[in-house]
């Protein structure tokens, strides 16, 4: 079987040194932009609308306190004092100067981080649930197998020239937080009737220009069969995937054009051929990787201090109710720190805030932080007795907004405020929606509602799977926003449906407000969420709320 390589410190340092020389040669004129561009992109350096942007990978969204503190230092020293956490579990620095980037990369390497981008048509970064290893409902921690897949796919000689890039996500929990159905391959760890752990394999999901929900290719693949099975899928795709048209090259189109049954049959055949070539080394490796992801030593539950604060302090209670999730260890909680303070930029954290998060992780959180694709920061392992102190520290830092999963917890891509590919802005739309619903004091009454905004068809803001999705477009030189409803990124993922004509920049917030008021009128009771109401009633009543007034006004005019 194939033997593995890994990023190590020496490799990263060497790449930084190379890039330092390349930057110098670009500045002194010996490299042209055509020569330099692929080199800078490989090192995570993009040229955006107003400046360069450095994108730094956060594998599995996992960081320790020291790493977070270093990101704060970088933000302060070479940027404008903040960083932007993205929907792809990266951090972006929006204002680096070309000359400083090698120093920034060296500072990242000091804490075992890098901005190296896997590029080309290969198997890209494997993503996993941001509650991995902590969630109460988890069948198993998805990170060991995600890491195994990463090692198996890195430099895999057969898969360096796939028809197109290829993304894999793994969740260990039935409440799919890794949006596995929107990936080329989505893996869901399940237990069969005999109690064995295995994988439900989805294939052919993806957002972007042709959004599709992944289809189940196999309900149960055993752990020992997983890598040969994945290899079989990628091999079938490698042969069958279209290379004539970039927009038709992803496996979602291959599945769509050939049908899931045909793909399944081909994969089974290929699997039989490949299975015997796997000697079981992969299973030994998995065992070794698992040891690295061993959970911290949890203390016995002591919740008296927590119970008291919860009973007496309504602000604390609201924070706990909204921003914490059930932990697998008794007496523990998972804390989601919202980077969506009303009116602020979704996903942005100042250097000072990053330092507070680093401190809290080190003092109370087993030195672990996670970044979620929903652009929030997570303290995955917190003893409940520490929650009052954590809440107090977060409040002082402007990080205690109790809105996780609510209308103002909006995902928004950078859009035309930064992104060179954008067709419209997304950040100010998110800011205005959050501010508006905060003014109305309706947020907690409205309950669970996911709004997701993208500034172009590339869908980095995952608008297709927002309960309310907003897509910013350029319509004849004016910003125009299309609305989709009923999208869902969870276990039963659905692509949202378009409501009709889009709305101008100054009309989109009132339009969203009309939708939400319609929901409040239509729901059976407080328990019925926006999504459930939409599923029960369909598009019509929401469409009426969106457009009828307008038509009446147009008729009157």
């Amino acid at each position, binding site marked *: 079987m194939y033997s593995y390589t890994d990023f190590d410190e020496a490799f990263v340092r060497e790449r930084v040194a190379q890039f330092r020389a390349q930057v110098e040669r*670009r*500045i*002194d*004129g010996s490299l*042209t*932009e055509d020569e330099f561009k692929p080199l800078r992109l490989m090192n995570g350096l993009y*040229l*955006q*609308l*107003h*400046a*360069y942007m450095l994108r730094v990978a956060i594998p599995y969204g996992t960081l320790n306190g020291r790493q977070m503190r270093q990101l704060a230092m970088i933000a302060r020293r070479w940027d*404008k004092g903040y960083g932007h956490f993205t929907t792809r579990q990266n951090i972006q620095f*929006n*204002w680096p*100067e*070309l*000359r400083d980037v090698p120093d920034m990369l060296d500072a990242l390497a000091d804490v075992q981080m890098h901005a190296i981008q896997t590029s080309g048509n290969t198997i890209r970064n494997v993503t996993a649930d941001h509650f991995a290893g902590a969630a109460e409902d988890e069948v198993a921690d998805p990170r060991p197998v995600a890491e195994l897949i990463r090692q198996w796919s890195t430099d895999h000689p057969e898969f360096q020239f796939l028809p197109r890039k290829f993304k894999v996500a793994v969740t260990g929990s039935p409440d799919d937080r890794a949006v596995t159905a929107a990936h080329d391959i989505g893996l869901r760890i399940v237990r069969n009737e005999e109690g064995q752990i295995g994988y439900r394999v989805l294939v052919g999901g993806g957002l972007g220009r042709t959004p599709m929900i992944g289809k189940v290719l196999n309900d149960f693949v055993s752990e020992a069969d997983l890598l040969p099975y994945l290899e079989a899928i990628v091999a079938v795709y490698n042969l069958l995937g279209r290379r004539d048209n970039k927009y038709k090259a992803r496996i979602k189109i291959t599945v769509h054009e050939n049908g899931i049954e045909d793909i399944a049959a081909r994969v089974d055949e290929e699997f039989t051929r490949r299975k015997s070539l796997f000697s079981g080394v992969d299973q030994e490796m998995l065992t070794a990787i698992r040891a690295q992801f061993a959970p911290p030593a949890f203390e016995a539950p002591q919740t008296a201090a927590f119970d008291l604060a919860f009973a007496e302090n309504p602000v604390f209670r609201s924070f706990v109710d909204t921003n914490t999730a059930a932990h697998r260890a008794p007496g523990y909680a998972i804390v989601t720190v919202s980077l969506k303070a009303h009116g602020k*930029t979704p996903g942005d954290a100042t250097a000072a805030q990053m330092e507070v998060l680093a401190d809290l992780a080190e003092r109370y959180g087993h030195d672990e932080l996670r970044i979620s694709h929903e652009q929030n920061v997570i303290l995955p392992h917190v003893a409940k007795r520490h929650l009052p102190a954590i809440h107090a520290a977060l409040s002082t830092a402007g990080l205690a907004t109790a809105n996780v999963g609510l209308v103002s917890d909006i995902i928004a891509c950078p859009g*035309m*405020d*930064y992104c060179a590919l*954008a067709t419209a*802005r997304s*950040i*100010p739309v998110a*800011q205005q929606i959050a501010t508006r619903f905060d003014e109305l004091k309706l947020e907690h009454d409205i309950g669970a509602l996911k709004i997701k905004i993208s500034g172009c068809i590339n869908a980095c803001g995952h608008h297709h799977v927002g309960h309310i999705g907003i897509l910013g477009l*350029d319509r004849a*030189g*004016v*910003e125009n926003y299309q609305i989709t409803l009923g999208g869902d990124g969870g276990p039963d993922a659905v692509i949202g449906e378009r409501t009709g004509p889009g709305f101008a920049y100054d009309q989109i917030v009132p339009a969203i407000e009309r939708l939400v008021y319609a929901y409040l009128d239509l729901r059976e009771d407080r328990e019925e969420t926006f999504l459930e109401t939409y599923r029960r009633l369909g598009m019509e009543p929401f469409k009426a709320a969106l457009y009828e007034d307008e038509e009446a006004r147009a008729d009157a005019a």
Partner: protein
Amino acid sequence: MPRPFTPKVVTANALLEGDVVYLKADDGWTRRIEEAELIEDEAIADIRLLDAQRRGSEVVGAYLADAKAGPNGPEPVHFREAFRTRGPSNYNHGKQEGA
């Protein structure tokens, strides 16, 4: 009938800072669109662009952007170009910071 030519400015990003720059009539680069050369003739625009693209050790990604004459000099036409003259709308960063 050929479409009438919309006036243009040559714009790019500065190599070192990435900041938006415009080509002036005297061949210098300016950070302010008002100081840019407004090119009214298509053939001249193409030549000016070619000149700019040859200056790859100063700027990156030169292109022609639609512009119109204003009281203080050229003004952007499209909203994307208007944002490029200012900076992002969520912070007072970029050009608007010094303005």
